[in-house]
């Protein structure tokens, strides 16, 4: 994937006038990244498609807020992630109300059930488990895992689109991976063999 943090400024695209043709070119350039990031954040194809398209729609309406020297993708990424996280919160609230009186664990389980293994290529038991375990991470931890492993972004690029420093990225990745390992270990032995005594 090309480095979307080094992408063109709005001035270079020449589309501060929100021209349809220019925005079409931007959408076509970034649609796959937007879809796959959304997929990593919300876990299923339908929601990822819907949310990534909605994010472009909002970006189009608000593109005048972006300064002419502003880079499109880091700005757009904020819209996309806020939409995805807000969608997850609403999903949680909906499921909490439908499971009225049930314990928190059950709600969490329902939320993460939406991490559909159908979207995993060349599936096997372990890949499915990793995907579901990623779905059980906190939003911020899941986000860095997605950006690093699925989008192959460097630490520098991650820090640019998250508007944080490199140290924060490193530390967040450390705790994200640690948590991921804990979840996988808790659910039984896996080929990573990270569980004490767990062998495959």
């Amino acid at each position: 994937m090309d480095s979307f943090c080094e992408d063109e400024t709005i001035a270079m695209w020449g589309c501060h006038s929100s021209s349809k043709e220019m925005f079409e070119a931007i959408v076509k350039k970034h649609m796959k990244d937007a879809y796959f990031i959304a997929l990593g954040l919300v876990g299923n194809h339908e929601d990822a498609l819907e949310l990534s398209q909605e994010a472009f729609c909002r970006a189009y309406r608000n593109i005048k807020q972006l300064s002419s020297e502003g880079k499109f993708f880091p700005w757009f990424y904020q819209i996309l992630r806020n939409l995805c996280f807000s969608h997850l919160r609403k999903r949680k609230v909906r499921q909490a109300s439908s499971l009225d009186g049930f314990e928190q664990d059950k709600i969490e389980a329902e939320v993460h059930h939406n991490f559909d293994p159908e979207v995993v290529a060349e599936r096997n038991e372990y890949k499915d488990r990793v995907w579901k375990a990623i779905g059980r991470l906190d939003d911020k931890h899941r986000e860095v895992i997605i950006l690093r492993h699925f989008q192959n972004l460097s630490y520098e690029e991650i820090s640019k689109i998250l508007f944080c420093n490199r140290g924060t990225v490193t530390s967040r990745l450390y705790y994200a991976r640690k948590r991921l390992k804990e979840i996988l270990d808790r659910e039984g032995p896996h080929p990573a063999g990270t569980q004490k005594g767990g062998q495959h």
Partner: protein
Amino acid sequence: MTCQDYKDLMMAYLDNELDNQQRLAFEEHLASCPTCAKELKEFEKLKHLTDSVTLVEPEDRIWEQYWNNVYNRVERGLGWILFSVAAILLTIYGGFELIEEIIRDQTVGTLLKVALLALIAGLAILYVSVLRERVYFWKKDRYKDVRR
């Protein structure tokens, strides 16, 4: 440096994000610290496993229709805004016309006229109250000027 400091380097080492000097310093530490060496080995396995997960590429028709779907959303959004504004204006206009007609009508009882006026006054108070609350919170919103 403590093991905790090296833990920060561990992720960058794992992801090949260290410069030569940092890499050598970290490898030197690994050679003398079995705890960090063990942890790194576990993280390496986890990284390998996570990297093995790839996601299904949607069919071509999804990408072919993608821009049209985005544009339709933009267009429909604009349509809905215009429709809503027009509907509100027409409802207000129609409402006032109707109320004026009822109030001028000699055959309509005073009680109904008073009730109508009370209804309008109530709606006006509610509207002003909500508007004032919104303006109050908007002024207090610390993030309103944040532009990314």
